[in-house]
């Protein structure tokens, strides 16, 4: 017998100990595909939520070089606003996503006041001269500051902005390096900060520090992958450009020799013209491939775009001698993709299928819903199939098994699918044809009554 449980429960359990609730809130942030900024907001939420640590306000500073810069400030601006917010957040059944949504709105509302004032703050975090709050990062210690007005180590500009006498500074550390500071206070309720609050907030700081560290590493890794792809691209371009250049140079040299027969002149000029067109095509395709990531995905009805591809003269010409079998579910859902790239993605996939399929073969297209919120578009051919070693390389730019082709079709598709949170899957064996599945995030169309 098997009992199944959700990895993360989307709602808080009201009677759970606050340590558990806190861990639950923060761990959800690692699970959800949110941006770095949203995930930092989750951590501030955990610190200020009544079911988490329960501070009134939390502000975040991040280190940039040897400076500490104010990033975001979460919390109510006045007791009236606090009353309203806490009432909303204590509504029975309110879940994690709602709280994050609510706080996101609160932070952007605060752009006018709290966060804007915070973003103007930059502190020197040099070990000898740093003042509170940068002092906490330099010392790598949690600081509980009381009677702040009379504390010589506290920065005056900072005290003017925060406007309270008691607050807690939590350094964000990873691999023993300070990455930032979180400052917490109870500006509205004026309740004193307890040792238990400090312990819990310290735990949050450790998790936040390691989260920022891994998110930064992930960004760097993506950057490096991009650089590696660029390097590969540069190498490929060398080859692609050099061949036409050799031909153009060689046949031009021949033209410059004395007494070239007219027939040879015409032939050489035709070759030179063709090679120049090829250069132009290479440049066009490279530019096209590099442009992909700039478009924003959106939900749209894929029906018209699919019909346009299936009816295009290019597809009709290429499918001659091949049976095309198209079956799409009635009333397609809206899919999440960049609408202008969508048609090209499908056309590229069909192109590959036609190129792989010999005359008399078949290319089948299917469009169907899978689970909830997913739409699958599959293209199956009866062509030569893909061998296992080739399968590993399919999505590498410039890998191709075609005689004429730059190897940018499938990498282009993968980039589009990655950008819109979708997936591409391949099933194939040499000699047995291939099945490509595009899996899009989708949503049902709103019916107008």
């Amino acid at each position: 017998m098997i009992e199944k449980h959700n990895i993360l429960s989307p709602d808080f359990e009201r009677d759970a100990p606050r340590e558990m609730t806190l861990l639950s809130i923060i761990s959800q942030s690692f699970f959800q595909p949110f941006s770095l900024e949203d995930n930092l907001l989750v951590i501030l939420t955990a610190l200020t939520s009544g079911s988490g640590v329960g501070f009134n306000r939390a502000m975040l500073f991040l280190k940039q070089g040897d400076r500490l810069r104010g990033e975001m400030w979460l919390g109510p601006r006045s007791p009236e606003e606090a009353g309203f917010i806490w009432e909303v957040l204590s509504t029975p059944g309110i879940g994690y996503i709602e709280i994050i949504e609510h706080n996101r709105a609160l932070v952007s509302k605060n752009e006018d006041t709290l966060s804007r004032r915070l973003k103007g703050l930059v502190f020197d975090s040099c070990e000898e001269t740093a003042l509170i709050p940068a002092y906490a990062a330099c010392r790598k210690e949690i600081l509980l500051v009381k009677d702040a007005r009379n504390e010589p180590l506290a920065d005056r500009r900072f005290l003017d902005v925060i406007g309270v006498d008691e607050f807690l500074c939590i350094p964000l550390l990873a691999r023993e390096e300070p990455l930032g500071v979180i400052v917490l206070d109870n500006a509205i309720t004026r309740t004193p900060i307890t040792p238990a609050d400090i312990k819990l907030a310290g735990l949050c700081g450790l998790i936040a520090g390691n989260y920022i560290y891994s998110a930064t590493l992930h960004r760097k890794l993506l950057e490096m992958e991009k650089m590696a792809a660029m390097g590969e691209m540069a190498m490929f371009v060398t080859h692609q450009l050099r061949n036409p250049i050799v031909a153009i140079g060689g046949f031009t040299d021949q033209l410059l020799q004395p007494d070239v027969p007219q027939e040879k002149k015409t032939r050489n000029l035709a070759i030179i013209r063709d090679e120049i067109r090829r250069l132009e095509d290479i440049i066009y395709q490279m530019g096209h491939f590099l442009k992909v990531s700039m478009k924003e995905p959106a939900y749209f009805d894929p029906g018209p775009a699919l019909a346009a591809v299936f009816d295009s003269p290019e597809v009709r010409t290429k499918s001659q001698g091949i049976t095309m079998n198209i079956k799409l579910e009635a009333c397609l859902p809206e899919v999440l993709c960049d609408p202008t790239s969508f048609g090209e993605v499908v056309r590229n996939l069909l192109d590959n299928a036609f190129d792989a399929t010999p005359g008399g073969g078949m290319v089948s297209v299917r469009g169907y819903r899978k689970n909830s919120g997913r739409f699958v578009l599959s293209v199956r051919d009866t062509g030569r199939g893909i061998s296992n070693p080739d399968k590993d390389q399919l999505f590498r730019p410039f890998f191709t098994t075609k005689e004429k082709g730059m190897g940018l079709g499938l990498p282009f598709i993968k980039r589009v699918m990655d950008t819109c949170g979708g997936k591409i899957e391949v099933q194939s064996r040499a000699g047995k044809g291939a099945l490509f599945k595009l899996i899009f995030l989708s949503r049902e169309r709103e019916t107008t009554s």
Partner: protein
Amino acid sequence: MNKKILLVEDERALCLLYEEELSREGYDVTAVMDAEAALAALAKTAFDLIITDIRMPGKNGIELITQIMGLRKDIPIIINSAYQSYKEDFMTWAADAYVVKSASLDELKAKIKQLIGD
């Protein structure tokens, strides 16, 4: 008797150019477009020199060289590639010369002359 050169190059225009230019230098050139055709030609004719590209559909130039080394160690080989970087692959060191493709064929012609004379 003219010296015989086997040219392995998958670009049609380059095959034509090299064929014409090397014939003008007094060589008999047989041009093929992939490694399989090259091995078939080698089985039939006693060539004096092989010029091969590296990146080709099917078997690449390095695999071809490895196979030729097993068959006929005595034929000089010139690698003619658009890539500099294959020089780092030690298998290309087995070739007698490595000429990067260029709009001028002077270097290639000079290497051929150096290896097998006119």
